[in-house]
């Protein structure tokens, strides 16, 4: 059973990682814990649902996967619309609060925004769960005792691809480097001549797109529900903090650790204690390393 739990953990961890990357970036650059990040995942999943329903007549699937071209369109649409939503929320709520500079107001406002967005989903799409397809993929054995579905393999592969892509974006492009620089020290970035407002906008786009992809992948392999993002927000935070706020690779590592730990915990604890695992792990790590696993050391 351990092998299966480990595989499940990696699959869940990959989703958490994608969502946590956006969180860790905005967390670091804007310096506040954005509780509405979970709703970006939710909206991503629902935006994709619009596209998938629009293409309901198109029968196209890639090999063993449960989806085809419509899902590719849906992913792109979801990423674009979610980025727009993220920028809109930033522009309407967070930007004015950044000016008035009361830090906690930002967090409380993000909690309020999360509440509002979540119920907007209920109002628009209804409270019941939705699925991209009623077909269920039956998992196949890939290793002794380990069964996964093709979609789950796709999820992990796409996550890996996106992380590598993001790595190249952040380490090779001017904009990517500016993002890292701004995350490192926003004030110095400003002094250096970086247009921080523009970098912030791009951060929302990158974070929003990754959140949308995470939401779609989660929707594909688990469920689409108005509360889906909210249910994930605490693991997202745990992953971001565990990995070290501001570190993209830390978020990925944190996501995997949380995903695997949650799944393995059922060997020792009743599964209903699962949500607590993320926190206990996070607190334990912070006690030993207050800046997280890959966090920047205090200099």
């Amino acid at each position, binding site marked *: 059973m351990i092998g299966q739990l480990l595989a499940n953990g990696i699959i869940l961890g990959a989703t958490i990682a994608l969502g946590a990357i956006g969180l860790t970036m905005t967390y670091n650059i804007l*310096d*506040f*814990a954005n509780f509405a990040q979970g709703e970006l995942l939710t909206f991503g999943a629902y935006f994709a649902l619009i596209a998938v329903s629009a293409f309901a007549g198109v029968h196209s699937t890639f090999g063993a996967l449960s989806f085809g071209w419509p899902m590719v369109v849906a992913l792109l649409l979801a990423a674009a619309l979610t980025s727009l939503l993220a920028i809109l929320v930033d522009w309407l*709520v967070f930007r*004015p*609060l*950044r*000016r*008035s*500079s*009361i830090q*906690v*107001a930002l*967090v*409380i*406002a993000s*909690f*309020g*925004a999360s*509440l*509002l967005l979540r*119920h*907007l989903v*209920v*109002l628009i799409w209804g*409270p019941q769960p939705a699925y991209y397809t009623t077909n269920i993929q039956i998992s196949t054995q890939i290793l002794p005792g380990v069964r996964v579905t093709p979609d789950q393999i796709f999820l992990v592969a796409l996550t890996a691809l996106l992380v590598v892509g993001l790595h190249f974006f952040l380490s090779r492009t001017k904009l990517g480097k500016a993002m890292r620089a701004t995350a490192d*020290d*926003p*004030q*110095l970035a*400003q002094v250096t001549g970086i247009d921080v407002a523009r970098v912030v906008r791009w951060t929302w786009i990158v974070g929003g797109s990754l959140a949308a992809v995470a939401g779609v992948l989660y929707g594909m392999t688990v469920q689409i529900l108005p509360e889906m993002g909210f249910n994930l927000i*605490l693991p997202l*935070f*745990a992953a971001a*903090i565990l990995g070290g706020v501001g570190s993209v690779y830390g978020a990925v590592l944190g996501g995997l650790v949380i995903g695997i730990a949650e799944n393995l915990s059922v060997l020792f604890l*009743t599964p*209903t*204690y699962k*949500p*607590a695992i*993320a*926190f*206990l792990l*996070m*607190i334990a790590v*912070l*006690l030993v390393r*207050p800046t997280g696993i890959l966090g920047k050391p*205090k*200099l």
Partner: protein
Amino acid sequence: MSGVLSYLVFFLTTAAIYSIASLGLNLQWGRTGLFNIGVSGFFAVGAYAYAILTISPLTGQPGLGWPVLAGLLGAMVAAGLFALLVGIPTLRLRDDYLAIATIGIAITVQLIATNEPELTGGTNGLFAIPQPVAGWLHGSGGVAFLILVLICVALVYLALERMIHSPWGRVLVAIREDETAASSLGKSAFSFRLQSLVIGSMAMGLSGALYAAFIKFISPQDFLPIFTFQVWAMLILGGSGSSAGALLGSLVVWAIWTLSGGLIQAALPAKLQVDSGAIQIILIGLLLMLVILFRPSGLLGRKRPAVHRSTVPSKEQA
């Protein structure tokens, strides 16, 4: 007693119970800058402690059958001890780590309440919780209990106001404003923050105990994260830093929370009635965000001159 008045008594009792938690949060956040978003956890510890201490073992539930006064004090002690347990590992961390840790702990408390039926009654909850002064002023529809709750509010208010305006309270503000300066003055910021967390949490525990006594039944569902949001909304709306603001905020937010349901029900066409809950929460969320945006210091908050963000030294120093 007239129906509306009877509802008013009920409404005021609930709002007053909430206000005690919000007074506690004012000490923690408003005065010390402790970002506790696990209020529901401390509230739950108080509620369960009161219930377990006072419920008669004759009901076949985990109960000790202590007198209600001992139950109230026990709830405060339990919440305080719990805060100590939470505070020692987390208070040295960055502010928002404390936030995530406290919300995680609140969820853990809820999980324990759900999964340890021998201790907490599990998902079936605990019933037959004794209510203080229940028999007094017979037929008054809970006025006696309201008076008791108001006395508790007054005591907590006065106690916290005294603390806030003592030298101890001024150190707290100094820590909030500039921790490095406060430490350099030879004050152990950690110890002060811990004291503030514990005392504020004791108020939350008392609030939870009174809630348990008022409703006479508790279950894990009573302690969802939304409760924490409600208490925060009360503090922010009333005015962070001001005890009077915390009281006023409790009244206003709870009124909005409960009355808007009826208004929306009345205003919506029958077809949309099932959506009324979602619409209500959207409107409440919107209202709160507007308050935060346009009146960030709340109704009674003191207007501190805001420091420009761009001028705050970079994070590692702050």
